[in-house]
């Protein structure tokens, strides 16, 4: 089997770094995109020094949607093709601040949905033509119910999950694999300020689950697995009760 060519967007996120290490260990060809060039370089150096691979990197301004197409074209040209694209970027908005400042809502939707939607359009366009490829996107279990503590983020993730569901149906006949990744709590810089409980998983655990789900061409994966039954219960709570719960 030829070596995979893997594009990782948001490559400095903790989960993305762990995913990149797995693919680098498999000697895949890697192209990393992220906002912060200095941190991106640290990630690239680590992969190259650990696994003796050569890794490509480019910075990206996530605010500039019109530059996305070019970024993907560059990645494809540099690697001589593309097999797997993983979208790992995002931000956790402060719910209270966001409900007081509509601009923060716009920003949260931009960071956690709009940018992903744009990227997947370009990726779908490319993969459809070659009749294969994988688009793997990190959504979240928080998109499954609107919790009062976190519904700005949850809304963006719900939109993303719905978007990916539609995209998967559309691309099914083209042989393109679309994976929706739904992690629960992960111990990353995004959640660093939160107190940790037993439900928190490490980025490495989640990364192994992501790569396994890509290998097995799954539609949706909950990570770790126990979030599937937990979310089944939470989805089943009738709204008159749910709205009274403090979760």
């Amino acid at each position, binding site marked *: 089997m030829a070596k995979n060519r893997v594009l990782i967007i948001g490559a400095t996120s903790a989960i993305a770094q762990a995913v990149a290490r797995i693919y680098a260990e498999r000697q895949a060809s890697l192209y990393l995109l992220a906002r912060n060039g200095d941190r991106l370089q640290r990630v690239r150096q680590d992969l190259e020094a650990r696994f003796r691979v050569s890794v490509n990197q480019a910075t990206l301004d996530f605010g500039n949607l019109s530059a*996305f197409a070019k970024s993907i074209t560059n990645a494809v040209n540099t690697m001589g093709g593309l097999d797997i694209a993983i979208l790992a970027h995002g931000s956790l908005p402060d719910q209270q601040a966001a409900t007081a400042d509509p601009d923060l809502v716009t920003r949260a939707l931009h960071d956690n949905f709009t940018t992903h939607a744009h990227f997947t359009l*370009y990726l779908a366009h490319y993969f459809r033509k070659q009749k294969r490829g994988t688009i793997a996107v990190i959504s979240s279990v928080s998109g499954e119910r609107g919790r009062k503590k976190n519904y700005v983020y949850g809304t963006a993730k719900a939109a993303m999950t719905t978007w990916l569901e539609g995209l998967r149906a559309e691309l099914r006949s083209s042989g393109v694999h679309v994976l929706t990744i739904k992690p629960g709590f992960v111990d990353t810089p995004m959640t660093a*300020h939160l107190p940790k409980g037993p439900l928190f998983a490490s980025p490495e655990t989640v990364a192994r689950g992501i790569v396994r789900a890509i290998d097995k061409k799954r539609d949706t994966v909950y990570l770790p697995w126990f979030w599937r039954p937990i979310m089944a219960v939470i989805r089943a709570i009738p709204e008159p009760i749910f709205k009274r719960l403090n979760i």
Partner: protein
Amino acid sequence: MELSARRPRYHRHNPGWSIVNPGKSIAVRSWGRHFKYWHYLVPLAWPPDHLPSAQDTGGSLLPFGLGASYGDSCLNENGGLLLTRKLNRLISFDRDSGLLRCEAGITFEEILKIIVPEGWFLPVVPGTKLVTVGGAIANDIHGKNHHRTGNFGNHVPAFGLLRSDGSKLICSQDSNSDWFQASIGGLGLTGLITWAEIQLIPIETSSIEVETVKLANLDEFFTVSAESDQRFDYTVTWLDCLAKGPYRGRGVFIRGNHVGKTDGGEVLRVHGEPRLMAPFNAPDFLLNPLSIRMFNTAYYANQRKKSTTSLQPYASFFFPLDSVRNWNRIYGRRGFFQYQFVVPFHGGKEAVARILDLIAESRQGSFLAVMKTFGEIPSRGILSFPQPGITLALDFPNRGTKTLRLFNQLDRIVCEAGGRLYPAKDSRMSGSFFRQSFPEWESFSKFIDPAFSSSFWRRVSGE
């Protein structure tokens, strides 16, 4: 396909860290498990440009890797801990020269996984691979090869130090050499070590050729030790600390060398994921003088011949205890102490003999009394613990004042012999003993970052 949108207006500088649950402190224990201190935790995701203000973390900061120090040198009660574990990236690895440059939160376990298959090994390893590079420098750790290679700090050509005023120092013997010497063995007090260079040593296989020699008493230790130091890179002795009288100092001398390809060693292979785990604290009655005596006697009797030779994987030679994750829980809820001292060769033998007598009489010792000679290679750090002489490390279950009284008696012998205790293992030595046995403490203290402190330092410096 053309898509466009207004750029949302936001810019938030992300410093690479945030405070966990700001304003609320969280309990942290060190390896000995008898301290449970509250801290403000600051996980570092990236080597930071600046540190959090000490005002937000109870007034002070201290770097914290894996918390493998036994006592309070890695704790900062009611203050902040800078958690370094996510600073685990390599920066470069020259496979020809063996020079490794990495961030300071990477562990020895992670490094060995990368370097062993490439024919390299860490120049100095302690009894566990679950330590970070930053912690190894800050405690200037030693290993079974001290008589040949000195401390870990002797193999660190350079490292980066971030101070709370935002200054970044590159420290080596040529640049900022005063900070270099202060930070090696500096207990994390001089600032945050963000990256380091390590000069690795070449190996041909991942096996160690191990020879074990039965020792009938303390005198034999000195004979065997003297003739081993020239021929073996690694030497260590296990002592039965409950043996009395003519048997005092009986034990097993263990010595080894890396094995070459032609000598039938295993090819280069990484080993040593833990197979067992201590899932909870053992009940206190499990470790009692009788059970420990049975273990020690069995261990000693197990070595039937005067000497045996075998090939061992590096992990079981260097890190036997790592095969049980969280083995420190066997000492129960009250935790345990480790007492490690060094005494100079001159007069050291008599001091060791008196100490072994006291411990055997007290019936408090545990298994794992480990003895070794330190060589003449000078330590680089101002506060580095090793000095030429004999070092002995013993575990003691925490039996409260009874245990502490014994330690005070041992302190007097160590002190009279001109020796000192290892800060990384200490939980209780008096400030005056520390200041007397580390007279360099005063010149060292000029290098302490004004925003940094530790429970250990406040205890011994009389702050």
